[in-house]
Structure formats: C-alpha cells, structure tokens
C-alpha cells in the first residue's frame, strides 16, 4: 500500500511551526518517513506538488484576499486539511494588528504604501476554507503533531484537549505562577503542550488559544486581584495570541 501523501503549505506566518516538524531528532523523524510520503515541504525540500494530497498541513493566517484561491486549491486537492499552528488555527499573533489602523505608517514610514503591505484582517484559514482539525500552538507541539499524524494514519479523529493548561501543570506538579507573585493565563489556555513554560517559571501566554468556553471575566478579575494588573492590562493580557477570539467573545 502506498504511503499517505503529506504536504506543508504556508501563508502569513514565520514558518516556525514547519521548522518544529524537523526537530524530532533523526530517529523519530526518519521513522515517521516510513509511514508518510512528504511531497511538499519547502523548509526541508525543493520539490512541489500539484497532485492530490492525503494530509495538508497549512501554516499561517489568511490575511490577503489574494491567498483565497491558493487555499481553495489546497482544499480541493487535500483529503484532510489541518490548520497547522496558531496563526492558521485562530489568526494567532498576526491578529494583533486587526484592531490597529495606524501600524503601516508607524512601522514602515515612507515605505508604507508598498502593495504587499496591503493586507486585510488576519483570520484563521477556516475563514476561507473548511478545516478538518487544528494543531494549536505557537509553535505547535511536535509530540502532539506526531499523535495527530498517528491518529489520522489509522483513520481516527485526533484527540485535542479541551481542558486548560492548569491540568497539565498540576499533573507535573509545577509550582503555580500565582504562588510566586506572578501572573499566568493557564486557566483559560487550551492544554496539549504539557505546560513547559510554567515549569520553567514563565507564565502561560495561551499560545494554543482558549479552551472552548474560557471564563474571561474571571481571568481579568484574577489578573487584577492576584497579579496586581491594571484593569486595562488585564483586559488586554490575552490579546497576543487570542485577539480574534477576544473580539468574538466581547
């Protein structure tokens, strides 16, 4: 039986999630190649494909109308489309610009009128095409991606947690950031990363997005009362990776 064909595509992003895919180390990466046939992956190879694909990993957000046709062509050719990384899954960090109007002048000055800067709101790729599953995170968690691939190879729907990062912090007995006079977004952040940041003493920034029903008012309250944030800072704290979701919730 031929191996499933896997391809990677990128839109508005840093391509770091694709790099993450090459970080398994030789043994796991080469073992994985026994089970899938990577047909397009510009971070690691020069070939391209116009053939049908079994699994398309699409990185980056949908931020230019001009990209719609390419997304649609991927969708037409791919049996399964995975929004790969937070930019693709929710708009991610790119969505920070969505509530700004002055950034072009501010950032690019005299070059502000260049045509490639003429972008629309940064949206998840699901704003343009149907997405089957999402690999969350900035960057994705490579071990979770390995499980997603394993599940799909067996025709099983991937298991993506809908519980917050607190669950994973507690499972590994991490000292809570709030117990060390710090702040954290772990209570509303989707788990699946195994909570590495708080384990190293760094607050969770919710880079995998929110759980399905985040208690955002309670988050703001805790950030104000326990972390000493101003109301404004508390309200904006989760924007970095969740600007689109916060807008939808408000």
């Amino acid at each position, binding site marked *: 039986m031929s191996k499933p064909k896997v391809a990677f595509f990128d839109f508005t992003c840093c391509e770091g999630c694709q790099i993450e895919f090459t970080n398994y180390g030789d043994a796991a990466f080469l073992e994985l190649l026994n089970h899938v046939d990577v047909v397009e992956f510009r971070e690691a190879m020069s070939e391209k494909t116009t053939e049908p694909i079994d699994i398309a990993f699409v990185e980056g957000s949908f931020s230019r109308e001009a990209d719609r046709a390419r997304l649609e062509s991927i969708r037409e050719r791919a049996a399964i489309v995975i929004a790969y990384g937070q930019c693709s899954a929710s708009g991610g960090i790119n969505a920070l610009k969505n509530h700004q109007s002055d950034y072009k002048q501010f950032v690019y000055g005299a070059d502000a009128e260049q045509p490639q800067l003429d972008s629309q709101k940064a949206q998840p790729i699901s704003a343009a095409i149907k997405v089957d599953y999402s690999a969350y995170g900035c960057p994705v968690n490579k071990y979770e991606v390995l499980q997603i691939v394993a599940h799909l190879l*067996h025709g*099983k*729907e991937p298991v993506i947690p809908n519980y917050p990062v607190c669950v994973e912090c507690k499972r590994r007995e991490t000292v809570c950031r709030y117990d060390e006079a710090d702040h954290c977004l772990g209570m509303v952040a989707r788990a699946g990363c195994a909570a590495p940041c708080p384990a190293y003493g760094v607050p969770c920034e919710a880079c995998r997005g929110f759980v399905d029903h985040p208690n955002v008012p309670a988050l703001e309250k805790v950030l104000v009362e326990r972390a000493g944030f101003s109301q404004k800072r508390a309200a904006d704290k989760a924007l970095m990776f969740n600007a689109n979701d916060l807008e939808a919730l408000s």
Partner: protein
Amino acid sequence: MNHQCHWTDVENIFLPREATIVCSEQATPSETHFTLKMADGQPIEYEPGQIVELSLFGYGEIPIGIASSPTRKNTFDLVVRSVGRVSGAVTKLGKGESVYVRGPLGHGFDLTKLRGHDVLIVAGGIGLCPTRSLIQYILDRRDEFDRFVLFYGAREPSLQLFTDDLARWRTANDVEYYETVDRGDPSWTGNVGVITTLFPQVELGPETRAVICGPPIFYRFVVRELDMIGIPRENVFVDLERRMKCGVGKCGHCQINDKYVCVDGPVFPFADVQGLEEAF
C-alpha cells in the same frame, strides 16, 4: 524489604479478552449489528441488560449493552452506532476480524422481579438494543412470564433496528408488539407519533412490570403514562446511558449524583433513581 505480594496473582480488570466477529450486518445507515464469539471458546456469562466494554487497541474502549439473550449460547450480539473514534473504527470491521471485550459489567435486569408477571418493555431508538437481551430471554423462556407487551419507537422507518425480529414480532403470538415512528415515509402504514401514542392502543394493568430504555427525554413521558396506569414506581425499571469509560466503577464519568451507572446500573428500579436530580 521483601514482602509477600499477591499482585501478580490478581486478575487485571483492565485486560480485555479477544472476540471474533462471526457476523456483521449494516442495520441502519449508522448502526452495525455484530455477532461475536470469544476467541478462546469460553463464552461470557451474563444477564440480560449487562454491558461490555468493547475495544480496539489504539482506538479505545466504549460501553455497549449486550443485545442478545444469554439463552442463545456461545455467541452474543452488539449493535454499534458509529459516533466516535472507537465505534467508527469497529463498524469498519467484518467477519473473522477481532475486537476486544471486558465484561460482562454492571447490573442487568432483575429477572426475579419480572418472572411470573405481565411485562411491558418500552424501547426508543437504539434503546431497543440492550432491551433485546431481555426480549429474547422472555421469548426463550416464555412460560416464566405472563403477558408480554413490547413498544418500540424509532425516528423514521429506515432507522428501525433488527428488522427481521420486528417482522416476526408483528405476527407472533408470544409477544404483543406495537410500534411507532416519529416521521413516516410513503411506504409506512403503521402508527406515526411519539412513543406515548401507543399507550391508548392496549389495556395494561397496574400489576404490570415495566422496562424503559430510550433517549434521555423519553423517560419522563413514559413514566407519566405508567403512573396513569397505576404501576408502582418500584416495578418500573430503567436502563440508563452515560459515559461509562472504565465500566468498573472507578473513573467517575458515568456518575448520576452518587450512583455509578456502570456498576450500580445500567438497569435501575425507577424508584431508586427518581430522586436523583441528575438522572432525567
């Protein structure tokens, strides 16, 4: 520090046994009817209404009520509705392939409470599957029971399960069978309406023992009918469905208030669960 340990001698309740698919039949567009035989030749011993945890390695386990009577030896039936990871994978399997089962688990129908009495079974949708274990049992040991009345409701004719059984029951003398569908189709000449529309069609006495199994909304309306007949609630038995993940009363997912459906049930006397706020 060496101590006498007996852990290696104790049966591991999470180790399943292999079963072979003897027959697999597409019952409805989303449901498959399997007949299984234990691979080691040792049949499982169960009571009507008990469940098994059905699994495929790599996919997981799901609780399924046994859909055949222990009076039919050597094999047992399960109907699997393709709704998730495990059921989706299992329903792709065919004759001769292996699945894995743990069980039987839980408490089934208390036959001592039903024998010697009129029995009414009210089944809705996939609720016909676990109750079929009791239906077959009664039909196989017909003289142990008095009158036997069976109500079955399905959403539409194409979603009716066990169509061979239904065809037999419609004309049989050993069961008074009544059926309805929520929505008919051009070929349907039977009753159309919710399950409660069957009650006026048959005379039932307050001594009847009643068994109910159906979707969550079903129970409240059926019990109201049974109340009107005057059937005491301790003579009403309900077969409940929850997320029975471990099947052995540990994992907590199937709890209704303080009851674990997988070990305290899935069959309960209605009187024992009617006061549980989370039951219906």
